[in-house]
């Protein structure tokens, strides 16, 4: 402060009165990279934690993985062979690091039931699940932002009530049931889409995309319903802020104020819920992929669990965990992109 006055006091208008101090400003670039680096460390730490938990639960806790996979009726020599194949006779720590090393290098071991490398299996299934999740989240976000903004702009008027009624319905309807209704209407009655299955991406973009439209809509409904409510209440809250009045006093129209000054400030809670929803969406695919007979990751983990294919379960679960953690990391970065105040003052 003293130093500051010494530097800046000389050209002040009133020399007797110290001018207001400039808030200490860290160079913006450095602040952002420190923020990202710290977030990235958290990201790695969470990932290691998740892998340890998965490993402990499936391989170290009492209970013989080979016995679980083969069932209690299995012959002793078959069990021994599988134990050897899975490397169970080696110490847990060694097995853990082998596994992690494999995950990092991409050599994931073999599926017990399919007898193909788990990596191939996962890669193949990701081609369904990732586009499905991306379509669902895009659809739900677009719908939610539009509906939420619309409802907030028409607060306590019929449009608002209409959106809220839709949201209530969307939350109340179970996804799998809505999926069945969609199939009934669009596949059975109208015949616009097939009722299920996935033709792959081999025949070009459109057939694959088309087969994911109904499942993505089914996944998106509940998400959009919740997200539109969050958007609405967040927008309504921001609309009461002083800077919104400032924007209006500058001569901005209602619409322009909403888009330029309200929306971005209202996005923080929306992005938070979106992150949580994306995680939910991944688990949601387990059900929806079953309803639509899609060969996705959700169905893979479901089948692997019922067939006790532990190598697959282990890897897919850790992949799910990694995706969730990555989504959280992404959400944190989005926060910083949206609100400059969060770039310097994290935690």
């Amino acid at each position, binding site marked *: 402060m003293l130093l500051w006055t010494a530097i*800046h006091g000389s*050209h002040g*208008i*009133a020399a007797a*009165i*110290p*001018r*207001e*101090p*400039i*808030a200490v*400003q860290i160079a913006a670039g450095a602040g952002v990279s420190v923020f990202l680096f710290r977030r990235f460390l958290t990201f790695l730490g969470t990932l290691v934690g998740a892998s340890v938990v998965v490993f402990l639960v499936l391989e170290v806790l009492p209970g013989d993985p080979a016995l679980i996979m083969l069932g209690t009726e299995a012959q002793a020599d078959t069990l021994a062979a599988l134990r050897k194949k899975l490397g169970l006779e080696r110490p847990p720590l060694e097995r853990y690091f082998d596994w992690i090393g494999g995950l990092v290098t991409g050599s994931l071991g073999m599926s017990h039931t399919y007898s193909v490398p788990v990596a191939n299996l996962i890669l193949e299934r990701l081609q369904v699940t990732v586009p499905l999740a991306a379509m669902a989240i895009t659809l739900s976000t677009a719908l939610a932002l539009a509906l939420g903004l619309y409802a907030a702009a028409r607060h306590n008027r019929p449009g608002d009530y209409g959106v809220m009624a839709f949201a209530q319905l969307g939350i109340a309807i179970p996804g799998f049931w809505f999926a069945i209704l969609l199939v009934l209407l669009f596949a059975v009655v109208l015949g616009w889409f097939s009722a299920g299955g996935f033709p792959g991406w081999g025949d070009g973009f459109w057939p694959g995309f088309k087969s994911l439209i109904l499942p993505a809509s089914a996944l998106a409904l509940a998400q959009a319903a919740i997200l539109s409510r969050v958007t609405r209440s967040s927008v309504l809250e921001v609309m009461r*802020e*002083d*800077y919104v*009045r*400032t*924007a*209006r*006093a*500058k*001569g*901005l*129209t*209602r619409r322009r104020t909403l888009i*330029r*000054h309200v929306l*971005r*400030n209202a996005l923080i809670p929306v992005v938070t819920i979106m992150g949580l929803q994306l995680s939910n969406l991944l688990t949601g695919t387990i059900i929806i992929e079953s309803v639509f007979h899609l060969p996705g990751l959700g169905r893979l983990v479901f089948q692997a669990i019922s067939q006790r294919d532990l190598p697959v379960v282990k890897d897919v679960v850790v992949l799910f965990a990694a995706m969730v953690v990555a989504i959280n990391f992404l959400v944190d970065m989005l926060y910083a992109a*949206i*609100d*400059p*105040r969060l770039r310097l003052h994290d935690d």
Partner: protein
Amino acid sequence: MALLEVRDLSVEIATSRGTGFAVRGLNFALERGQTLGIVGESGCGKSMTALALMRLVPENARIGGAILFDGEDLAQADEARLCQIRGNRIAMIFQEPMTSLNPVHTIGRQIAEPLMMHRGLDAASARAEAIRLLDRVGIPEARRRVDSWPHQLSGGQRQRAMIAMALSCGPDILLADEPTTALDVTIQRQILTLIGDLVRDSGMSLILISHDLGVIAETVDSTVVMYGGMAVESGPTARVFAGLAHPYTQGLFAARPQLGQGAGKRLATIAGVVPDLVDLPAGCAFAGRCRLAVQACRVAPPAPQDLGLGHSAACLRLDAAREPAA
């Protein structure tokens, strides 16, 4: 013709407890280049008056009367027309510089916004103009500061940035609603001096809203004292402060803290509280707190009495008020 003439302005607010009258029968006129102060305690309707002039009152509020700006009645103007006037010909600065700037836009962008909208400047020239304005309002290193976020500035600098934003389009009227209340005492003086300089240099008119009599006395040509949503006394500032005709103005004046008053001595107060705007008394709004009130005061709101030279006060007991308090 006055630049701004307010006739019988009223603001009614629909609340769950009934209709509140935030402003009632307010009249004043403002000439080009003139400065006007509105003074009164919290809840007297002064901020609502400012918002009404911009037609930015809350959605549950209704404006009555006429707001003649350059001959055009803003009370009747449509939203599109108002958007052309707000920030362009009538600009406003607010009490809380901490919350009045948008935290997710740089101050440069926020200052450039009205320039691009009302003046049709492109982004580059709006930015250059924003730097010039920041420099004009006394922000050091304006060229660097233009890219600062609001949270990187101190309170005083934010208020300077707000002023730069309000000035950007060279408005005819600057509305300043308690512009220094949220600031440190040392900064208050600088901001007021800055506003005074800018008003003088640009020839715009100023409406300064404050609860601080000292600020009003030093800054503005004419003064309106408000109480219970009405003007209780108005006139040239020098005459209002020399005359102190209305018992409320007298009370307000007696209640101000003074240097050298002596430690341990309590500040004088006006007994009682501001009347509830939803349940206003039939007569003079101040009657319940007035030491001079008589039965007639409680019957109907008193009409303004002309005291000569543009000075008037709405009180039935002006003669009694002239005697020193017993």
